[in-house]
């Protein structure tokens, strides 16, 4: 496969084609992030500035990784898809053998940094699916759907088991969308959708039950406080609503919202920056998503377009789930807002996705695929 693009070196366009609109909109989002993380963390130990600085550092690291990924052709990365996939599954299994943090097996504690393998799982899963789907037609039969479905489900179940409901929930649409744009039959997808939903419901309730058990003898452990999450959502809804059109101004957010610099950062943006800022944030994300889809549409190479679509979908599903949680439209799942929430894993994971997308957009040389999949 690697030989496919070496076949026509003469058609390579050396000037990198970078999607400026995409970069500008994501850049603005990251800027908003640094500003509002600083504000949201002002009363945390260490002070807002330290959180802001760290967040800026994470953006910096993200940029470095971004640049590094641009130097490699995405097809080179694609060649290692099986190894990457095996690696990430190993990491996701390995995390169960570490000490749980806050009762969950989500992190590798690297002392200076809490590494979340599920963040890395996102790009790897997208690459794996693309690798599997790019020159196959089998997904057009129901039987052929089983393989990609199983490929995606193994890491997903592992993430769900951590338990990290949000991560698994955000990824589910990616499989569907990637299969959809690859050309799978609609009714097949509907069937898969149904199967996935049922599996999810079963998983959800088994996980829930173990939380309940925990509560019985855990007078010391109110983490799973049944009403804490709902109450948190009420607070965040109130915070957003009270921001109004123009917001209360930086640093003026109400003090009582937990996790406001991480999962609930959108509430802070909306309360302090008002509808104009929060709306702008949503608009920027949407613009970025559309330009991402534009990259997919312009790319002729089949794996590339699939990866591009996957990256856009995971990005959007995270943003939509997170903002809808803070606005009280869906129950709390525990999911960060990409490029905005405080935290290294989330920021770096987001930059990896962006880097893949831009990488694909800048390499337009290979036109070996048929105009269309059909």
């Amino acid at each position, binding site marked *: 496969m690697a030989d496919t693009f070496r076949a026509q070196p003469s058609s390579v366009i050396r000037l990198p084609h970078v999607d400026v609109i995409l970069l500008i909109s994501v850049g603005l989002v990251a800027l908003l992030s640094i500003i509002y993380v600083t504000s949201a963390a002002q009363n945390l130990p260490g002070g807002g500035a330290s959180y802001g600085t760290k967040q800026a550092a994470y953006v910096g690291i993200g940029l470095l990784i971004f640049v590094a990924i641009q130097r490699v052709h995405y097809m080179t990365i694609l060649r290692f898809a099986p190894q990457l996939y095996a690696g990430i599954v190993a990491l996701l299994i390995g995390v169960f053998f570490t000490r749980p943090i806050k009762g969950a097996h989500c992190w590798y504690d690297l002392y200076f940094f809490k590494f979340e393998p599920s963040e890395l799982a996102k790009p790897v899963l997208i690459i794996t699916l693309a690798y599997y789907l790019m020159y196959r037609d089998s997904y057009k039969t129901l039987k052929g759907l089983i393989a990609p479905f199983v490929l995606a489900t193994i890491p997903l179940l592992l993430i769900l088991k951590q338990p990290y409901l949000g991560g698994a929930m955000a990824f589910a649409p990616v499989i569907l969308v990637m299969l959809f744009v690859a050309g799978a039959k609609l009714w097949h997808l509907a069937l898969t959708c149904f199967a996935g939903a049922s599996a999810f419901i079963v998983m959800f309730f088994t996980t829930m039950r173990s939380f309940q058990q925990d509560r019985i003898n855990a007078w010391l*452990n109110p*983490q799973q406080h049944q009403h804490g999450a709902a109450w*948190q959502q009420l607070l965040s809804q109130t*915070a957003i609503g009270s921001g109004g059109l123009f917001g209360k101004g930086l640093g003026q957010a109400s003090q009582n919202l937990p996790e406001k610099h991480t999962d609930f950062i959108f509430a802070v943006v909306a309360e302090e920056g008002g509808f104009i800022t929060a709306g702008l944030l949503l608009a920027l994300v*949407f613009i970025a998503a559309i330009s991402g889809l534009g990259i997919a549409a312009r790319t002729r190479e089949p794996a590339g377009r699939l990866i591009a679509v996957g990256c856009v979908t995971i990005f*959007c599903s995270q943003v939509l789930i997170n903002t809808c949680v803070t606005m009280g*439209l869906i129950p709390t799942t525990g999911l960060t807002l990409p490029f905005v929430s405080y935290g290294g894993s989330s920021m770096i994971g987001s930059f990896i996705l962006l880097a893949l997308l831009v990488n694909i957009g800048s390499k337009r040389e290979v036109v070996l695929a048929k105009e269309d999949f059909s």
Partner: protein
Amino acid sequence: MFKSRIGIVALILGVLFSIAGGRLFQLQVIRYDKYRQLSERDKDGGSQKLIPASRAAITTREGDILGEDRPFFDISIRVDRLKLEGVTLDEIKRAREAAKSLDERKRQAEQFIARLKDERFVIRLADALKYDRIDLAHGVFTAMDNVARKWASLSSTQTIAQGVGEDVWLQLKATHEDGFHNGVLLYGRDAAKISDLTEPPFPGLVCTLSTRRVYPRGTFACSVLGCVNDMTEPEESQLRQYGVLLESFDARTKAWTATRDKLTSTQASTLAELFGDDPREIDDLGHLYRLMMKLRPDERETVARMGMAEQLKWIQRPPRLKLNDSEMLWLGVGLPMSAARNSLGNRTIGEMGVERFYNEQLRGKHTLRFSEAEYHDFSMPVSYQNEVEPRSEKPLVLTISNAWQEAAEVALQSQERPGGIIVMDINDGSVLAMASNPVFDPNVFTPPRTGAKRQEQLAVLANDPNKPLLNRTIDGEYALGSIMKSIVMAVALERGQLTPDETFQCPGFIKEGGQIFHCDGNHAHGTVNVYKCLRCSCNVMSHQVGARVGVENLGPFAKLIFGKKTGIDLPFEKNGIYPDRDYRIKTTQQGKSVRPWTRGNDFQLAIGQGEMNSTVIQATVLMAAMANGGNVVTPRIRLEAPTNAPVSLGLSARSLNIVRQGLDECVNTGTPGERGTCYTAFHSNGELPVRVAGKTSTAEHKKGAVPHAWFAGYFPAENPRYAFAVMLEEAGHGGAVAGPVAYKMLREFYGTKTSPKAQTAVAGN
């Protein structure tokens, strides 16, 4: 087809983003007013409110109140409504930013307080509240400073004066009736109302009803009651972190680390299986508690065998304070990031005595309430809306009896030396009187411990060389002296190493190992048997009997009482010392050889001296055991506390009867030359209507120091019901000093034969 499918994806995204945007618009633009109001109210704690509950009362067994919460008023301000002429918030903010060191900040604070003291607002308010001006200025400054450092918001109400009496408040309210609505409520909070006044009298003032601990009888039973205080900052942060406040958290964390590091890898892996977590990686005491709570009884046994018996004991006692669900939600306990600066309105916590031991039972359980109307249309499952009323517990009834406690205190305070008295029921262990001298007034400790006068009172108590805060009955360890003879004789008789007929010759001293041991004052007792030995406290005979028995053979009996806590339901009880081999090994430094035990040491132990140490409650329990047929009872101070089954010393009635005969003679034999050591104390004034038996003790504890004076016994001698012990630090002869105190106490209670007191409510009846 690919492009068209991408188009569809874009379309779907467009729809989803429109929904999100629409929701945002709905929240922020359409419903803005509603949420703004809610947000404002949240700031004042309006829509979520902690309804405080007061601390339960403490009563004697007759139901007389010893401690209770009484209403007081706290005066608070909202900094945004505060109108001052000179000092401004900005100024404080700027100064805070400019300050480079803590000292500089302190200096600034003093300057601000000095300026605030002369503010018209402060002068007039201090006058109206009859409050110290500097204290009030201090309160106002702290409130403003809290806002400056963002510990509080502008609109939060912050207390500046605590514990204002109801009369003062009513007068203030009457003078400024216009400024209020809803009676006692929130003066100056309703901006529309106060703007009607040309000059609002005290803008920004808020008054809230609070409660304060009051001990109406002052020093009465103070060492039993103890006192309350506000939680310290580390305690509060522990509470915020775990939802519970564990007893001696730091010490236990240290102890746990030591135990953990000693575990072998096999032990650790066994424990890891039981716990589900590797014990060598548990740093967090709260986590350890949680894991241990989950263990089944048989698993607990396994854990205890791994050398973690001590840790298991920790979880037997309930924590000092355990938050309920409402309180946890209010404080944000367990939520990953509790940025909320909510505080428990009442931070009172028991610091000493029953207030500490029974803190969790006594404290009022707060309730969180949401205003339903404002949240019900959110369709969120908030189920705290209609929770039960805040709960104050039933009064805590003590075993302390009014009349006995009074008698004990009068007797004890009739002389100058520090000391302690206990009167206890010999069968159920209920303590009828527990007094320690000197006394303190627990009201002094009740928060707020602010203000110059209060500080002075506290300093006096803290610096008193006689340590009035020490409960000498359980918290002080003293050489027991001759009282020990009673158990030594009983054990010797029981073991057949002594018969009632056997006699010893006492020339007043005995030599052993190059040392000379004396009877009191080198007095030669002549021919001595067990009765005379107890009656006249002959050391020479006791030494020899003690040496026959030996420290290790006495141990199985004596260690049921000595060298361990009696288990009374009061904090800070001491163990005392029983100096057997185990004890010596435990106290020997690693690598050094254990001190050898000599016959001379047996001599000393037999008369309760040398290393042996006892608490007053242990002496009482010993006497109770002598009187009740050899059962060691667990003393208790709460009437409803469960009675533990007594542990038998395994002494026969025959041996005990012989010892009791001796103890009776000690008080009641007056034949010249054969007179008991406590005869004079009980028979030279008025005769008591009750016959007392007991043993005096003059316990030397330090070369050259005056000995501790003891008298412990029981009454009525014929049919014993109560045991008692009197101990006076460095007061002299037991018979001459402690005996009369016991006599005085009994006379206070019973009167004399010629003029008996009618005791209507004799405890235990």
